[in-house]
């Protein structure tokens, strides 16, 4: 297992570092560093988006939830697809038309105030770190499994590799690593599905009957994981609208030249990732039937190892060569997945720090091209190191709550200020700041008071705070807006934003 694991690990490292080396020579300007010069085609960005969005939490997590809790896992997976409809119809094209590198660009373009941009920086950094730390911890667990390194060393390896990708290869390297990872993940899912279908006589319905026969009809019913009905609604809301507030997803739309390409890339994403999300239920059920829930729980109480265990079983079992190869391969693909997602998050965070905070807020935009790139590289180094330190601190903690927090803050703080900036004439800087503060504070406070941190009899009854914190974010934005009297300049500014957002007009 160790030798095989090492070989596959080195292979993935070799391919991705070769991509980085190739990309580094093409990354010399700020626009190439942040957006690969907006030169990607629809399929390229679609695969990269899929690589960004099919995280280990999605592929391993949704399958594991389906294996242990049935329908709740399937609803999670569907939510991850539904979220892109709001992005497609409301957010992606206006964003492409009014921004350059970051979420802060759009808010800054609308409000023309550094304070407004600063609010977007806060939202970006908090959401991205909440996402990044679980990736570090998950990647470290997989390296431990593959190579037998201790946790600390594994975190250091993940952090170092991710820094090298982003610092030298920028968006071009990140994109191609995400594309490679998406292909690997799609291939793995396809092979697993073929073997599963072979086991069940090529009739997916027999998988459902087998689950029911072994675990009873309750396994196929909702409510086994999220027992409080409000949690179900809150989760749905997070996915349906919060996905549009995730900065690392938003940044991907700057890598294409125009709105038309942006929308076509979302179709690619929805077909590719949607198919994978759909089969996570079948993979999870097959794992419950073939491996057994007890064995899945024994390996990891959260069910995250259901897919690797199923791969081992389908390869011939724990003691066979085939089983070992399959297990090592799936673990390696999951590791590549984590690296690709972590690279996207690091890049998007360093954009918020270097481009928004340093270049625009502190320096007022007066920074030469060369210096912009230098600062961008330095800030990706800093983000990577900070992520490593936080990853070390996270050892043994339940990091799953951070994933909930990330999407919840995206829905409650980022989504309201993006939508209102693009579509509400009266919205102003005060509204941006109050909306960000209200959404962020309520999401964090309610998550901390909730059962994920406090244990079951918690002050706040549900795990996912979005159903409360998102309305709070919107109300905060509304009240903040009305605190300041209507200024004709602000209101008139909206006309230009609206026209450019909807037509993609650039004067060239």
């Amino acid at each position, binding site marked *: 297992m160790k030798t095989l694991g090492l070989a596959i690990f080195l292979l993935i490292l070799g391919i991705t570092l070769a991509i980085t080396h190739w990309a580094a020579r093409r990354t010399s300007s700020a626009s190439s560093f942040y957006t690969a010069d907006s030169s990607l085609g629809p399929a390229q960005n679609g695969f990269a988006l899929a690589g960004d969005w099919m995280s280990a939490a999605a592929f391993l997590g949704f399958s594991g939830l389906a294996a242990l809790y049935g329908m709740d896992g399937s609803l999670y997976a569907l939510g991850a697809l539904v979220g892109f409809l709001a992005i497609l119809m409301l957010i992606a094209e206006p964003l492409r038309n009014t921004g350059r590198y970051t979420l802060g660009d759009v808010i800054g373009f609308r409000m023309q105030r550094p304070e407004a941009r600063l609010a977007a920086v806060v939202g970006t950094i908090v959401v991205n770190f909440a996402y990044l730390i679980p990736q570090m911890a998950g990647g470290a667990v997989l390296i431990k499994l593959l190579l037998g390194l201790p946790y600390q060393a594994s975190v250091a390896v993940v952090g170092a590799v991710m820094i090298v990708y982003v610092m030298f290869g920028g968006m071009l390297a990140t994109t191609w690593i995400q594309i490679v990872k998406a292909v690997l993940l799609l291939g793995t899912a396809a092979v697993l599905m073929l073997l599963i279908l072979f086991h069940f006589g090529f009739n997916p319905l027999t998988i459902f009957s087998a689950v029911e026969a072994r675990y009873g009809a309750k396994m196929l019913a909702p409510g086994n994981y999220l027992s409080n009905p409000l949690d179900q609604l809150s989760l*749905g809301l997070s996915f349906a609208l919060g996905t549009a507030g995730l900065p690392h997803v938003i940044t991907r739309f700057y890598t294409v030249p125009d709105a038309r390409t942006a929308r076509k890339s979302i179709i690619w994403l929805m077909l590719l990732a949607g198919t994978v999300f759909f089969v996570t239920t079948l993979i999870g059920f097959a794992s419950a039937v073939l491996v057994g829930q007890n064995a899945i729980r024994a390996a990891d109480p959260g069910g995250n190892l259901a897919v690797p265990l199923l791969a081992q079983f389908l390869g011939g079992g724990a003691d066979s060569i085939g089983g070992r190869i399959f297990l090592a391969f799936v673990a390696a693909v999951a590791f590549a997945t984590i690296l690709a997602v972590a690279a996207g998050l690091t890049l998007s965070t360093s954009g918020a720090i270097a481009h928004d905070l340093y270049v625009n807020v502190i320096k007022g935009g007066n920074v030469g091209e060369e210096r912009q790139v230098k600062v961008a590289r330095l800030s990706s180094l800093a983000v990577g190191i900070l992520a490593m330190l936080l990853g070390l601190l996270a050892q043994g903690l339940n990091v799953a709550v951070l994933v909930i927090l990330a999407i919840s803050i995206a829905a409650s703080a980022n989504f309201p200020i993006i939508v209102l900036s693009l579509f509400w004439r009266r919205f102003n800087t005060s509204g941006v700041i109050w909306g960000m503060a209200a959404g962020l504070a309520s999401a964090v406070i309610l998550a901390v008071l909730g059962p994920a941190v406090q244990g079951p009899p918690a002050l706040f009854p549900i795990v996912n705070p979005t159903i409360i914190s998102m309305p709070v974010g919107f109300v905060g934005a509304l009240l903040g807006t009305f605190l300041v009297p209507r200024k004709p300049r602000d209101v008139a500014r909206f006309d230009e934003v609206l026209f450019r957002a909807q037509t993609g007009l650039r004067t060239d």
Partner: protein
Amino acid sequence: MSISYLVPHDCDSANPEDTKGAPTIDWSAAIAQPAFRELLRFKWRVIAPMMTIYLLFFAGLMLLAGYARPVMAAPALGPLNVGYVLIIIAYPMCWAVALIYVFAADAWFDPKARAAARNLARGGK
């Protein structure tokens, strides 16, 4: 009319290179032109019903999963219960909504948006 807001503090402009060449565009006239109003009306008529349908479907699914669990667990098609039938329908529905939007955008929104932008370029001179 004052155009101070048209020339943004360059520091904060997302597209500084865009605005430099055209400091005299009257944006309130730009969004008032019939071609642009028509684009917005058209977009609204396509997007609003589709967003309503899929958000209601998804919210309904989540409400049922929360408050009508016996309904979701009731047998429907062979080994599938009502919940799984709805989940399986939801995937092609999402894809269909997305494809319809992209079709509408390519065929109708884009030409109208280009026309509005062209009008503006002509009127601005």
